[in-house]
């Protein structure tokens, strides 16, 4: 019983400490631009958790997150602008449509063994989504995009202010983080990990690869769809070029930089990739070059991701601390 409690404690506490730190930022800085970056960071966290479920936990590389994100964003935007539906109704529908998209990609992906083909099939999906968004002008208005997406409202409070958006986003992030921790710690999450480690041995103990792989695709698609819907309502305008290949790549880099197969890693990765380009803004036109170099260096030299690096550093520090304490005791005696 106590072990169970401790285990829960260890897996639940670090992500919420991280979220708590982020939630304190507005108390210290009231800069609207910083709020904007952090709201984007929150959306990225949701996207990174989705990416981590499919790629980090289930081991299926998915470079089509931009497709699911776009499906969520466009569903919610179209429902609220065309049918003047409430955001709170459009959000679950967007998640549902994204889930269907997840099945559409997940089922063909079952046929594929190995990484390269999975990358190609998921990028093709995102590519097809983008072509449709550009060409189906009567529904999506094509490259012009959708404008005037309404702000969500809670009772009489219309979420329009950056600070309100910040709290709304991070409440959703906190709920999703909690659910994601429960998911990856549950039987389903352990099945994902078993499939990642060895499909054959997972199958031999009765785990159905088809079911769990499609389920992982659906989970990540739902999260990407939710992130997309929040993005659409926050930005108020969306156009197809926001959902290109670069966004799928961003999702991949977030989990590689933050930590593969780790929920707190997703939080670190999402926020880091929202802040990092802004941090490089001082470099002017060299910004994107420095960004790319930073990404390459992080991938080549930090294989465990930023979060685990932090944990390792803390453990090393603890070891030194206890070691010096012990030597101190010895000297005293």
């Amino acid at each position, binding site marked *: 019983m106590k072990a169970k409690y401790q285990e829960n404690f260890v897996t639940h506490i670090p992500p919420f400490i991280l979220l708590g730190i982020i939630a304190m930022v507005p108390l210290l800085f009231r800069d609207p631009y910083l709020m904007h970056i952090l709201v984007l960071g929150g959306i990225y966290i949701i996207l990174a958790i989705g990416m981590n479920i499919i790629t980090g936990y289930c081991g299926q590389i998915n470079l089509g997150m931009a497709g699911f994100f776009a499906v969520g964003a466009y569903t919610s935007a179209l429902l609220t602008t065309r049918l003047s539906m409430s955001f709170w109704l459009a959000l679950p529908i967007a998640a549902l449509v994204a889930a269907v998209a997840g099945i559409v990609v997940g089922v063909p992906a079952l*046929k594929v063994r*190995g990484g390269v083909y999975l990358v190609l099939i998921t*990028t093709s999906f995102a*590519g097809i989504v983008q*072509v449709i968004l550009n060409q189906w002008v009567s529904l999506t208005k094509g490259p012009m995009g959708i404008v005037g997406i309404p702000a969500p409202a809670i009772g009489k409070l219309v979420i329009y202010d950056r600070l309100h958006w910040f709290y709304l986003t991070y409440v959703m992030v906190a709920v999703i983080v909690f659910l994601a921790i429960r998911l990856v710690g549950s039987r389903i999450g352990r099945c994902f990990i078993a499939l990642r480690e060895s499909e054959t041995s997972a199958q031999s103990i009765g785990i159905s690869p088809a079911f769990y792989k499609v389920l992982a695709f659906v989970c990540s698609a739902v999260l990407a769809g939710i992130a997309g819907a929040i993005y659409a309502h926050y930005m108020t305008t969306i156009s197809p070029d926001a959902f290109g290949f670069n966004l799928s790549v961003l999702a991949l880099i977030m989990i590689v930089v933050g930590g593969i197969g780790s929920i707190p890693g997703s939080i670190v990765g999402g926020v880091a990739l929202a802040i990092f380009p802004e941090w490089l803004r001082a470099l002017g036109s060299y910004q994107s070059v420095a*960004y790319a170099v930073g990404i390459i260096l992080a991938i080549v030299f930090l294989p465990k991701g930023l979060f685990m690096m932090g944990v390792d550093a803390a453990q090393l520090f603890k070891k030194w601390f206890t070691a010096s304490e012990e030597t101190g005791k010895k000297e005293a005696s």
Partner: protein
Amino acid sequence: MIIQLIISGLAIGSVYSLVALAHSLIWSGVRAVNFAQGEVFMAAAFVALTALSEGDRLPALPFWAAVLVGVIAASLIGLVIYNIAIRPTSKKGFLYALGACIGFSTLLQSSAILVWGSTGEQFPAQISMVPFRIGSVLIVPMDLFIMGISLAAMVILYLFLSKTRLGTAMRAAAQNREVAGLMGISHRLTDSLTFMVASSLAGLAGILLAPKFFVTPQMGSSISSKGFTAAVLGGFGSIPGAVLGGLLLGILENISAGLISSSYKDAISFLIMVIIIMFKPEGLLGVKGGRKA
């Protein structure tokens, strides 16, 4: 009509073949994928364009010398990508190699924007673009030139792989890495060489295609997905398959653009890829039961 579409599809198809060939060489030799291939393609086109035009201190080079400069630049970029992005990450897992390659493609793209600007430039056509007529079919001399050079490059590649010592070493390493290593063939050498040869093919493709389109820093991303589709269509890792897949993709794309709609041209390529991966993952000329990508 159909014959016309097939003939004009062959030129772009032969360029797709070169890019697919680059993918297949790398996969069969190194068991890696260079996801920055499209940017190598773009960089070679820009370097050749710069060599071709009058610089501040440098005189304008003749066309052939400019092509050579572009191809050499592409092969050096390939060497750097292998040694920095692929080699150190190959033991950690595919995900890291993928991430590092994509990092490189961002790096090349943003460097190109920095050096050459984001608007793009026109590549001067060396051969006439004015079509002539044989029977009822219009043929553009430029297309013939592109096909001829691609064919020549493929023949040179074949001779290099089959007749030279280095080429034989590369094929040996592709067949069985461990045994090739025991025979004293350095993996690092053959792998680097494979990347250089493959990248120079992709670079040549970029230079050949440049006069038909505007040279822009973003031109790599669409060709990159076309190259993958062509390679998958022919059989990932198969050398003759890459050639066939590229030509076939060029023709299919042109026919569908001519008969259906050109606005969904890119979607056709994606659809072909999904269909092939689902129903015939070994491709048209791939070895069945062999190692799959």
